């Protein structure tokens, strides 16, 4: 694929790469509007995994035979692809994990559990996914540290006015926020929070699960200390994600999972840890999954992250406009300019589960629930919302299908 930067992507053509769209659901064309939960997979990525299994499979790193060498090369190539994707300084800083949740837990345990002390402060936001909230609450609780939440303002954006007050309360050790909210699509001002965190001497953990699939990332420009990514949301397979971390910090940390591969030497009285990134990759790696993730990055970069972001942005604006036509609808979150391809809403008097179920019968797949954001739901004063989310293969007709579907939902409950 030869695509030059800035080119608009052609979602209709790209759809042909995704076998899932070759079916109808309940006799209707499939309008898959739940990509924020997990994206669909292009054939190219599936082929890369099959090819790996069929020609180059063996356990990595330790074998001196041909298949093991090939497998190791494939895994390390994927690591290099991810390094370049994040503009990380070194592959030593790219750690393969299962998903963003494990990436964040790795930091919470291996840094938080052994560094937090009673009275220290961990700062998160009201807009976090449970995966960037509960781990901090858990380790803070274990260490007697305090959890503070930055609130949202009325536009669904972070209110940073309380930062000074928090800083006066005690030792801020960790600041953890997402870059893009999975509920509201808000793009958060991570730069200001990073600067503030570093002024406090805190580490900054960035949950980029929802950002990585949709926009160009640069860990050096962001200035964060750790960054978590899920492969399955960016055209990669389930079972592989990445934690990026600064080498200086990773080196000083305890390991997280221990066991095979992550050691330098094992003795009854003393075990020493392997070099980065191996120190944090205990046991057999998700090898084929990493290979698939590397292929997904190839796929995304051939299209261009800028083109993907622009496409989603257009869809978000279109969706916000069309949805506003539906009587009784409440739309949550910031205006289109400051959001990714995610739109959350409620229909008056109709529970999201019922909305989603009736939409499903019309071939429209959206998510209904708390989106693993209960603190945000409490703030919004609802138990759940409907959420439609878009990706590179989304076409405006799917949004039309959604809007028509919502009218039908309203008829059922009229």
């Amino acid at each position, binding site marked *: 694929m030869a695509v030059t930067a800035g080119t608009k992507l052609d979602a209709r053509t790209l759809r042909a790469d995704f076998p899932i769209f070759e079916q109808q659901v309940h*006799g*209707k064309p499939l309008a898959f509007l739940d990509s924020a939960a997990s994206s669909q997979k292009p054939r190219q990525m599936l082929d890369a995994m099959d090819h790996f299994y069929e020609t180059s499979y063996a356990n990595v790193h330790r074998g001196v035979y041909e298949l093991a060498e090939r497998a190791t090369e494939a895994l390390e190539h994927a690591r290099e692809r991810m390094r370049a994707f994040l503009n990380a300084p070194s592959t030593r800083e790219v750690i393969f994990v299962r998903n963003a949740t494990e990436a964040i837990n790795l930091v919470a345990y291996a840094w938080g559990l052994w560094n937090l002390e009673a009275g220290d402060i961990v700062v998160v936001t009201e807009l976090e996914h449970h995966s960037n909230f509960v781990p901090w609450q858990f380790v803070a609780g274990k260490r007697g540290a305090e959890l503070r939440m930055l609130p949202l303002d009325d536009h669904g954006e972070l209110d940073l006015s309380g930062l000074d007050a928090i800083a006066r309360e005690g030792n801020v050790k960790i600041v953890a926020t997402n870059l893009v909210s999975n509920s509201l699509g808000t793009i958060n001002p991570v730069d200001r929070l990073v600067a503030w965190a570093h002024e406090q001497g805190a580490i900054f953990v960035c949950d980029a699960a929802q950002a990585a699939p949709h926009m160009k990332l640069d860990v050096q420009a962001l200035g964060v200390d750790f960054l978590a990514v899920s492969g399955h949301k960016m055209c990669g397979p389930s079972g592989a994600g990445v934690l990026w971390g600064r080498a200086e910090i990773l080196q000083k940390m305890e390991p997280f999972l221990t066991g095979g591969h992550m050691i330098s030497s094992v003795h009854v009285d003393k075990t020493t840890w392997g070099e980065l990134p191996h120190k944090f990759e205990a046991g057999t790696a998700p090898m084929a999954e990493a290979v698939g993730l590397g292929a997904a990055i190839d796929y995304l970069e051939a299209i261009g992250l800028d083109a993907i972001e622009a496409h989603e942005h257009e869809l978000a604006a279109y969706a916000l406009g069309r949805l506003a036509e539906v009587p009784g609808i409440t739309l949550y979150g910031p205006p289109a300019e400051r959001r990714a391809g995610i739109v959350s809403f409620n229909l008056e008097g109709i*529970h999201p*589960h019922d909305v989603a179920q*009736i939409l499903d019968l019309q071939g429209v797949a959206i998510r209904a629930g708390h989106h693993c954001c209960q603190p945000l*739901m409490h703030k919004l004063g609802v*138990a*759940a919302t409907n959420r439609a989310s878009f990706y590179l293969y989304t076409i405006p007709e799917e949004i039309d299908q959604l809007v028509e579907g919502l009218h*039908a939902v309203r008829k*059922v409950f009229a």
Partner: protein
Amino acid sequence: MSDFALENLYREVILDHYKNPRGHGVIEHADAEAEGQNPLCGDEVSIYVAFGEDGETIDDVKFSGRGCAISQAATSMLMEMAKGRTAEQVATLDKDELLAEIGVPLTPVRLKCAMLGLTTLKVALHKAKGTPLPEGLADFDDLELT
């Protein structure tokens, strides 16, 4: 839209119970009560029970809380079913009896919605009378009642 499927799932009686829930409200100083939640959508329901003079028969039962049509209708139907039965009878009530009443085919996720009221009612009775907890909820004691 497959009207048949839709008619089937959101049939008149479901919508009627949803719009006009039976036993909706609160019993002050209830003899038994419990709160339940559906972790999938954050829906919550509270159930209140008043026993008759024998201390066993359910004299009145009410529910409050929010939820989808399926969970609200199922809980509303349950209120009608439970009244006049003993705590023991309700604690051992087969979920199929309630499912028959609901009378629409449910996927596993929606089954959780439909069962929220029944599970919560059984928990309330368990707390008040020591009747058995619903299946699969043996760990409920540790997790939720503290």
